C-alpha cells in the first residue's frame, strides 16, 4: 500500500542501555536506531528475543527512557504524546480488570480521560461491534476465552480513539485458529480507523500477513538489520497466505536476520 502521507514517528540515533541484573554489565538493548513511520502505516517490528523490539515499542510509548537519540511523534516527544493520550497500547496479555465487566473495562480509559457518559456508551457499542463481541458486554473477563479477552484489550485501546496503536505481541499467547481470525479482524479495524499501527511480533508469517513494512531487528546489540516492504496486495484474506509471493516474502524476511 502506498502512503504519501506525512511522517508520524521519526526515530534518530536511538540507543537504550540496561545494566544486566546479574553481572551489572551494560546491555545494549538498542543501538543507533533510525526509523521513520508514516501516518496510517502498519509496521511490524520483528526479531528474536533480545533484539530490542519490545524495548523500541516501549521507548516510543514513553514506558522506557532512551539512553540517547531522538524520538519524535509529529514533532512531539513521547512523553507529550502520552500525556495527550494519543497512544493505544495493547499488551501481550489482555490486562483486563477482573472486577469490571467487558463494557466497563473498555470504558475505563474513557473515564480517566473524562469523556462524557453518553459518548462513552456510544463508543463502547461501536468498538464491541468492531471486535465482534456485541453480545458479551455484560460478561466478566473470566467468563471469556483468551481470544475474546484479547479482543476486549484491543477494543479498550480503540475506544478512546488514540492516533497510534502500539501492539506488543498481542496474539502470541493465542492458538493458531484464534490468531488467524484476529489477524483478519485487526486488518479490518485498521482499514476502518486509519490508525498508525506498530506491531511487535516474533512470528514472521504474522508480520508479513499484516504489515506494509517490516523492520527486522537483530540482537547483541539490538539493531535494525533490514527494513522490508511487503508488496502483497490488499485487501488480504486467508488465501493471501497460500500464494508464492507470500512465501517469498517470508523467506526474504527470514534471510535478512544477521548473526542469529
Amino acid at each position, binding site marked *: 500500500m502506498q502512503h504519501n502521507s506525512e511522517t508520524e514517528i521519526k526515530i534518530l540515533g536511538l540507543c537504550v542501555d540496561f545494566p544486566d541484573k546479574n553481572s551489572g554489565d551494560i546491555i545494549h538493548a538498542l543501538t543507533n536506531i533510525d526509523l521513520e513511520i508514516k501516518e496510517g502505516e502498519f509496521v511490524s517490528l520483528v526479531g528474536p528475543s533480545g533484539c530490542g523490539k519490545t524495548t523500541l515499542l516501549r521507548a516510543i510509548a514513553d514506558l522506557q527512557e532512551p539512553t540517547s537519540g531522538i524520538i519524535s511523534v509529529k514533532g512531539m516527544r513521547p512523553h507529550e504524546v502520552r500525556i495527550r493520550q494519543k497512544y493505544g497500547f495493547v499488551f501481550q496479555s489482555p*490486562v483486563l480488570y477482573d472486577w469490571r465487566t467487558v463494557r466497563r473495562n473498555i470504558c475505563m480509559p474513557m473515564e480517566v480521560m473524562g469523556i462524557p457518559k453518553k459518548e462513552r456508551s456510544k463508543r463502547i457499542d461501536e468498538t464491541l461491534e468492531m471486535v465482534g463481541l456485541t453480545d458479551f458486554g455484560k460478561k466478566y473477563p473470566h467468563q471469556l476465552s483468551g481470544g475474546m479477552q484479547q479482543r476486549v484489550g484491543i477494543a479498550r485501546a480503540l475506544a478512546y480513539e488514540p492516533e497510534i496503536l502500539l501492539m506488543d505481541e498481542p496474539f502470541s499467547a493465542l492458538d493458531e485458529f484464534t490468531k488467524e481470525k484476529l489477524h483478519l479482524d485487526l486488518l479490518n479495524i485498521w482499514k476502518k480507523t486509519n490508525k498508525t499501527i506498530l506491531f511487535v511480533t516474533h512470528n514472521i508469517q504474522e508480520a508479513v500477513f499484516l504489515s506494509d513494512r517490516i523492520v527486522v531487528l537483530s540482537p547483541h546489540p539490538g539493531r535494525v538489520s533490514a527494513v522490508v516492504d511487503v508488496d502483497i496486495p490488499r485487501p488480504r484474506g486467508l488465501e493471501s497466505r497460500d500464494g508464492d509471493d507470500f512465501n517469498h516474502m517470508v523467506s526474504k524476511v527470514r534471510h535478512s536476520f544477521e548473526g542469529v
Partner: protein
Amino acid sequence: MTINRKKASERLVTLVWGLGLIGLWEIGATVVENTKRSPQNVLPHLYQIIQSVFSTAMVSNKQTALQIVLSNAGLTLYRAGIGFLIGIAVGFLLALLMQRFVPIEKIAFPYLMMIQMIPILGMAPIVLAITKDIDKSRIVIAAILTFYPVATNTLAGFKSVEKEKYELMHSIAATDRQLYTKLLIPACIPYFFTGLKISAPMAITASILVDTLQGGGGLGCMLSQSLKHAMSIYVFWQIVFLSAIVGILSYQLMALIEKIVSPYERAGA
C-alpha cells in the same frame, strides 16, 4: 452428579464430626459428674446448658444467667467493635503508606510483625499503663490485633497488581488519584476483606481476654468470676458458646459485607 456426591460426602463429614464431639462431651460430662467435688458440675451436660439459657432462676443481682451473659456481651462487643473499626482505619492507611513509600514498608514492617508477636496478655498491662483506663486499653488492644491482618492483606492486594496494569494506567496518562480509584483500591478489596475476616473474630477474642484482667464488666470479666464459683457455672458455658458463635458470625458478617460492597464477582467466586 460428582459435585452432588462431593457435597453429600462433605455433609456426612460434618455430621460425623458434630455427633462425635457431642458424644465426647457427654462422656466427659458423665465422668465429671461421677467425680464431682463442687456443688455444681464443672462440665454440665449439653442439655443442662441449653436449659440454663431458658431458665428464669436468678443467678446474681436479680439477673438470670442469660441476662448476665447478654448484657456483658453487649459491653464486650461494643469495645471490640470500636477497636475493630480503629484497627481497620489504621491498617488500611498503613498499607497505603507502605505501598506508596517503599522505605516506610522496609522500616515499619519488622516492627509491625514484632508487635504482633507480643502475647495479648503481655501487652495488656503495658497498654493499660499507657492509657490509664481499662476501657480504653481494651479498645486499643482490639485495634492492635485488627490492624495487622488488615495492613498486611491490603498491602498484599496492592502488590498483586501486575506491572502491565500500572503501565496501562501510565499509557493513558491516568493521574495519581485515578491510579488509586480505578486500579489499586478496587484490586485490593478482596485482600482487604480477607484481612477483615481474619481480624474480626480476633478483635472479639482479644476483647474477652482483656476483660479478664480487671473488673468493669464484659464477657471475660464474667468468665473469670464464674470460673471462681462466684457465679453459676452455666454463665461460664453460655459465654463460651456465645463467644464461639459471635466469632463465627463476625466472620460471616464480613463475608456478607464483602458481597454487598463488591459489585462484581471474581473468577471462581
